[in-house]
């Protein structure tokens, strides 16, 4: 059953790849949708190491054990802090919805308080755990929210890429535009430049490494550099496991309190 699914996904990729190669006029939107829809498995388990480096070169390292699973309309994710020691077993759960305009549900469990609390935040432009990534940057943004144009095709790190400019339809959005280098046959955004409201370069995201795991292309090492603040975040995924069949019951408040 599972193999069949993988097969069909691979087939879809293949078809997509083919159509884009053969069709003369692949649109910017199509390219970005391909990236958005690139299959990454149904569930994933990984150890995330997040390193924050500030302008004076000081580092903070956090390690997190994370589980995520796509339930179609809902994507659920749970994260347990492993390090530093004083926040160990603090856990964080999000339920993200495909439905446009619906805010994520978020919970936090603080072991020292022994309480699970709901957090509601009204901003997608919030930074993720004090890093240089916003929640949007982490891949939640739907392609239809921007207008995409292919600027050119060029090679980056030996990969043939489309260079796509994306301008938000909402004028008040935190970025005035982004420019993404997307690998043609893999649909991986290899590099992305974010421009601030004044159209100055704000951040650059680079993919340092992606791995083929069970036939899925998983980005496992990225760096986001805020060039204005000279601040950097490195995210590395290790021990990645895909489609291990994480059960539905993993994503509950009760599990959050249990720790790893």
């Amino acid at each position, binding site marked *: 059953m599972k193999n069949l699914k993988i097969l069909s996904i691979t087939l879809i990729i293949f078809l997509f790849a083919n159509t884009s190669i053969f069709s003369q006029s692949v649109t910017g939107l199509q390219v970005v949708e391909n990236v958005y829809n690139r299959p990454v498995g149904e569930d994933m388990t990984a150890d995330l190491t997040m390193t924050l480096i*500030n302008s004076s070169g*000081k580092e903070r390292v956090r390690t997190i054990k994370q589980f995520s699973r796509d339930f179609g309309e809902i994507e659920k994710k749970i994260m347990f802090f492993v390090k530093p020691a004083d*926040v160990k077993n603090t856990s964080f759960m999000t339920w993200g919805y495909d439905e446009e305009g619906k805010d994520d549900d978020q919970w936090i469990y603080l072991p*020292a308080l022994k309480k699970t*609390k709901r957090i*509601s935040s*009204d901003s997608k432009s*919030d930074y993720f*755990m004090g890093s240089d990534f916003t929640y949007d940057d982490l891949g939640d943004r739907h392609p239809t929210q921007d207008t995409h144009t292919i600027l050119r095709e060029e090679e980056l790190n030996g990969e043939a890429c489309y260079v796509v400019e994306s301008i938000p339809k909402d004028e008040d959005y935190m970025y005035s535009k982004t420019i993404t280098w997307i690998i043609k046959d893999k649909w991986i955004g290899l590099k992305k430049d974010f421009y601030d*409201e004044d159209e100055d370069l704000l951040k650059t995201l680079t993919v340092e490494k992606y791995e083929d795991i069970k036939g899925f292309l998983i980005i496992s090492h990225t760096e986001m550099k805020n060039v204005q603040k000279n601040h950097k975040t490195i995210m590395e995924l290790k021990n990645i496991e895909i489609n291990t069949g994480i059960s539905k019951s993993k994503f509950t408040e009760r599990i959050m309190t249990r720790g790893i």
Partner: protein
Amino acid sequence: MEKILNKLLKVPYIVMALSIVISVIFLMKMMDNTRMETNLDKYMPEEHPAFIYSDQAEEWFNIKDGIIIAVENKKGIYNKETLDIVKALTKRFQKMPEIEKADVTSLYTADNIVGTEDGMDVKAFYKKTPKTAEKFEELRQKVKTNEMVYGRLVSTDESVTIIIAAINKDVFTQEFYNHILETADEFQTENVILHVAGRPIIEGTMALLGPADMKKMVPIVLLIIVFVLYFILRSIRSTILTMLVVLFSTLWAFGLMAVVNIPIYAVSTMIPVMLIAIGVADGIHLYSHLHLFMMENPAAKKKEAVMDMIKYMWSPVVMTSITTAVGFVSLLTSQVYPIKYFGLFTAFGVLTAMLFSLTIIPAGIMIFGLPKMKIKKEKENNHQFAFNFAEKVIKYRVASMIITVAIIVLSIVGISKVWINSSFLDKFEKDSDIVLTDQFINEHFGGTSTINLILDSDSNDAFKNPEVLRLVDKMQQDVVGNLAIAGNSFTLTDYVKRMNKVMNADDEAYNTIPDDSDLIAQYLLLYEMSGDPENLWKVVDYDYAKLNVNFQVKSDNSKAINSVLSEIESFEDDFAKLGVKMNYAGSGYKALIFTDLILEGQIMSLVLSLIIVIVLLGVMFKNIKLGFIGAVPIIITAIVSFGIMGWFDIALNTTTALLSSIAIGIGIDYAVHFIEQYKLNSTSGNKLLTAQKTMAHSGRAILFNAVVVIAGFLVLLFSVFPPNRELGTLVSLNMFLSFVGTVTIMLNLLYRFNIYFEKKNKGE
């Protein structure tokens, strides 16, 4: 020397032309290479440990000076008009290149972290301005229940809210200052009044107002000086030549600064003040001698007269100038570069004034002829007055000594009252806009001045330790509770307490530091995840080993700041026990240290130059006793002028402290001319007649010099800028005291110690 000067007399046109040409070259250099240094940071001695630490801390915590815009609506701020303005203005500031987007704080940008039944809510107070009365009431309640905002961004009477825009370092310019004020003007409406305050604005206004006022006053000062000088010299030529000495020496001093690429600092504007006082003196003494010579030899040719003038006057002019210059060079001991430059270039100016006095004035006389003088009646009257005065001074010497001692004692009492003030705000009129705005904001909020206390621990995570945080909290409460001047304080403890309260369903009982350091760490993690982590790094460093505690103070006056510092320092031992050290940062603190440094340097150099002067005079007059006597006018001037500052509550600041240098410059001039003349006249063998003759010659010249400069500088009393008024008062006061000290006390001492008569009595 005399030979050279006499040779120059043969080529007056060349001397004149050469002086003019070189001056014009310097003027041209000034035109293309002079720049004003308006960045106050450039004034600070960067290598001083307090400054090094402060600069580092400013980097760690992104400490910047903030512009404060108070948005006032008498009907309250919770209406569309006011909140639209807050939003629009916030966005406008965020777009300015001088301001980082994250550095603008207002009700529009602030996060409202609130506790709910089952969790926590992080929301903006408003994004779109509310439309209905209920929504405004809801917003009002949100603000009222958030102690991180209430009383800090919104006044407790709800009529004012502030926008704070921290500006980047080294970007403040006149244009930016104007731009801010124009922007504020643009947003102002009938109901909504905008007030602009904050340190950059005060500095900007000062940088604008001081020189603008000087531009208006200086021509009047010069005009009065020229007028009085003419009245005294009774000759247009002599007046012009004397003023040329001042003008050329000033041009050369500033020209040299331009050539060696040193910018003009605020204190450099004191250089012309010194050169006017000193340059005029040389001219007056020369003309005074010429005048007397002409009276005695009415038939003399101009060359004879000039040669006589050079013969008798070159040495006192050179002596006074060299001692004065050495006095100014002693300012090189100061740690503050602008002061060093001030000393160096004033010394250079004094020497060029000497050069010009001895060249241009004789050359001018050779070219334009002797000044026409009405010699007849004046002679009797003037001399008689001087003779009588000298006689009375000597007759009542015991009384004058007693009075002097009494005045000095009184002055020393006054000196003990002198206080140092590094305040910028105190330089403005009490009813000026800038002071009123500052008061207005201080009435409604914690205070416009900030003191940054930096707590420094060797161990990481020290500031997650409940024991340490509790002590910080206690200190904050003590300082704010005990001192009316300290409006509020803010640091990590406020975040921790807020999170603790919020996570316990907004129960006020939990507005405390929790006992468990893990819980503190988890709260902070939660804040980072939900709030704006950038805010945290403004109060604590990545390793939680350094903490920045902000105190808002309602005055930038040194007394106020010092009272807060001493309250803070009462916790020093408690912190030391926990392994935490105290330091400070920020521009207010730097200004305080800076003023101390200037004063320390000033007093050091005053003492040093006094010693040098005593030795130099001793060597020049070949009598160490004369060194001490010659220093008397300086000592009296310095002590009494500081005493008067104490009694009249004129605080010491960079300008007023530097003015004590004038005591040295003028005091030496007077003393040397007087002693030199006394020596010449002592050949008569009659002590009283010597004193009388000296009074008629030198005393008169000294009086004229004092009158000219005092008359000119008194004009500054009409200035609209208080520091310029203080300058006028103190220059006049210094001139007057030097004059009085010389013609009374010093004369008495010369008389009492039989100077120049001792040997004669024994020898002949």
